[in-house]
């Protein structure tokens, strides 16, 4: 066995023995060695790791000065050369949990070391920090200290040694909400047949992916009076001027654009092409109105069906686009429409 793994531990004023709520404004400090629950943690580590320092702070003071305190404390432990940082366990204490999460995130970012904390699953810190650091679920109160510390120590050692982790359920931490690729002993075909047989026989089965659910939005109010409304047209079908001058990506696009249709009665064939990497573009290239129906809208505009067609169309490529990017682009487009006084938009989808 090489040298012991060096651990820094974060706790609050209560577990440091300074005091309860009346001492929640206690200033941050660093102490050498294990303090309070750190001793239980040290016992769980045995000879494999050593708590070289403990950092602590009052819960109120930390949360009111979170960025500064976290930066200061992490700067103070740089010389301790920790291989791992453990915070808490904070059980169901909200402010303590948030402090634990924050200190872990900053330690991970600044020192590049693995970080883990322990909180009750219902502690708000669980949801906030599980995407960024390892969060071990614990009981609700300090009465569950022993049950909390053992799995934290076990996971901490694995992390510090850089071992490949199994699933959150196997390793005892809360899922981050992210997914990674792994290799397993059986082919997908074999797993598929076996999973199906379990379902058909009424035996318990475990899907490899749970169906996601999307946000729901309350329907927007109707356009009040079409006769006085500016209406826009747009597409996720990637219609762009020929040559794609703005280099909208054919898949996983990050860009969107508006293209002027001022004074145009139609989108002329040859003037536009599809930048989209997900459908056969021949039909829309032959007549771009099949994707962005400017010609039909102009006729309806002249006939008085609505006041005015906005003088540019909106375009992006909706192919393999992550929801986060789509949300961002949608928000940016909507802001533009509001600024421009557009009351409604017709968006074509492929």
């Amino acid at each position, binding site marked *: 066995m090489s040298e012991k793994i060096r651990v820094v531990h974060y706790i609050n004023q209560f577990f440091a023995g300074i005091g309860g709520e009346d001492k929640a404004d206690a200033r941050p400090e660093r102490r050498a060695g294990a303090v309070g629950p750190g001793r239980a943690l040290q016992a769980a580590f045995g000879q494999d790791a050593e708590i070289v320092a403990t950092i602590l702070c009052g819960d109120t003071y930390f949360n009111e000065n979170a960025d500064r305190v976290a930066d200061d404390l992490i700067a103070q432990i740089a010389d301790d050369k920790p291989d791992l940082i453990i915070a808490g366990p904070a059980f169901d204490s909200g402010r303590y949990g948030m402090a634990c999460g924050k200190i872990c995130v900053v330690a991970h970012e600044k020192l590049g070391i693995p970080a883990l904390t322990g909180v009750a699953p219902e502690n708000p810190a669980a949801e906030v920090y599980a995407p960024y650091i390892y969060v071990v679920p614990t009981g609700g109160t300090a009465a569950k200290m022993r049950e909390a510390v053992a799995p934290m120590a076990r996971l901490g050692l694995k992390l510090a040694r850089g071992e490949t982790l199994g699933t959150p359920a196997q390793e005892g931490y809360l899922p981050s909400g992210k*997914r990674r690729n792994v290799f397993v002993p059986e*082919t997908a075909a074999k797993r598929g047949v076996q999973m199906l047989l379990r379902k058909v026989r009424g035996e318990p089965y475990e899907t*490899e992916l749970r169906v996601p659910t999307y946000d729901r939005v309350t329907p927007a109010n109707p356009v009040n009076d079409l006769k006085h409304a500016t209406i826009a047209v747009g597409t996720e079908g990637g219609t762009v001027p020929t040559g794609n001058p703005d280099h909208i990506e054919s898949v996983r696009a990050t860009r969107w654009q508006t293209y002027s249709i001022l004074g145009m009665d139609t989108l002329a064939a040859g003037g536009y092409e599809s930048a989209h990497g997900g459908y056969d573009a021949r039909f829309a290239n032959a007549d771009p109105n099949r994707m962005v129906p400017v010609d039909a809208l102009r006729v309806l505009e002249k006939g008085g069906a609505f006041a005015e067609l906005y003088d540019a169309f909106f375009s992006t490529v909706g192919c393999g686009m992550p929801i986060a990017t789509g949300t961002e682009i949608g928000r940016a487009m909507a802001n533009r429409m509001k600024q421009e006084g557009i009351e409604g938009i017709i968006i074509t989808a492929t």
Partner: protein
Amino acid sequence: MRLQLDTFSVRRLEFSDRTRLVDATLYLNLAEISALLTQHPAIADVEIAITHPGDEVRIVHLLDAVEPRCKLEGRGRIFPGVLGDPTTVGSGSTCRLDGMAILTTAEFPVPVGGLLQAREAVVDMSGPAATYSIFSSTANLVLHFVPAPGANNADFDSAMRVASLRLAEYLAQQVGGREPDRSEVYELTPTERDLPRIVYIYQAQSQGTLADTLLYGTQINNIVPTLIHPNETMDGAIVSANFVYACFKNPTYLHLNNPVIKELYAEHSKSLDFAGVVFYRGHNYTQAEKQRAANYAAKLAEFLKADGVVLTGEGGGNSAIDMMLTLQECERIGIKTTVITYELGGPEGKDFPLVDSVPEAETIVSTGSCDKTILLPEIAKVLGGVAYLDTAQPATQAREIMLDKVYCSTNQLGAGYMMAQAY
């Protein structure tokens, strides 16, 4: 239908003066093969190379992969409809060379944009990327076709397919007829016990030139879901002509060796009753056409008295809609259904993993996320081309690459061992 499959193992390929198989080494007469491959006027030339697992070799511009097979007894010719008449196959006996693949590579003569273009498809024979493709572990005969001046994409594509399938047949013919390394019989015999009846619903992509699948030599873009005997697939009734996205295209090699069919046959009469295969086209163009295809596929499964269905697809978001509608209709009529699908999710794996989903999708098998990137190391030798199609940088160079460009990395026929999991 009863088919005997005679398997000869191939571990090494070597050029020689005579084409023959000795002790799992297939010796190849280069001049003879070259002549066979360059008969069509759309093909100017072909470069032929050999590579084995562990070689410091990268293959780029991959189009299709084929396993050498030929008919020994029974009706029809291998790859019916492409090589000769569309005679019904799946009976008699067939010879196959296991452990090797013929890999076709080329750049198409006429540049095309949009969906219907051949996209970069890479296989590394060693190093960290070699775990992601099944063709990193086969002995590969790599064909690089050069188009004749003035050839169009469709003619060049068709010429390459006929040439490589004919080579596949020819190589098997040089070996077949002797005592095979092993022999299996495939037949949907009645089961003695009352076992759950399982139907395989087999979806394929067909959208046009460079994005097609052929059934007995003809594109499937206008078929309604139909029945096919699993043995027919082993004789090449389904041939790939789809080069769109490397990660989820189903090469001819896997239509011949469909992992789901293999698995259902292995369990037939043991834990299940393999009740049949429904074959259909994904990528239907309207909601009504998608729903019609989904309903029809589910109805055929019902006609086959299915208790359960395994459903696989080919292609990206468009085909996912067809898959989910099919799954939904199956579940609605009381057939339990498991779908095998790739995932997206973004490089960090925190975004939505599926393009489409229905609440009935309770049993999903993941073939992994194609949005993840891996590092292709610098490598000594490249076959199939010189520069990456998408970046134009020399293909010997190291690059970070998304798995969607790694050949068959998230294959939905379930050949691979990868999956995505929450962490």
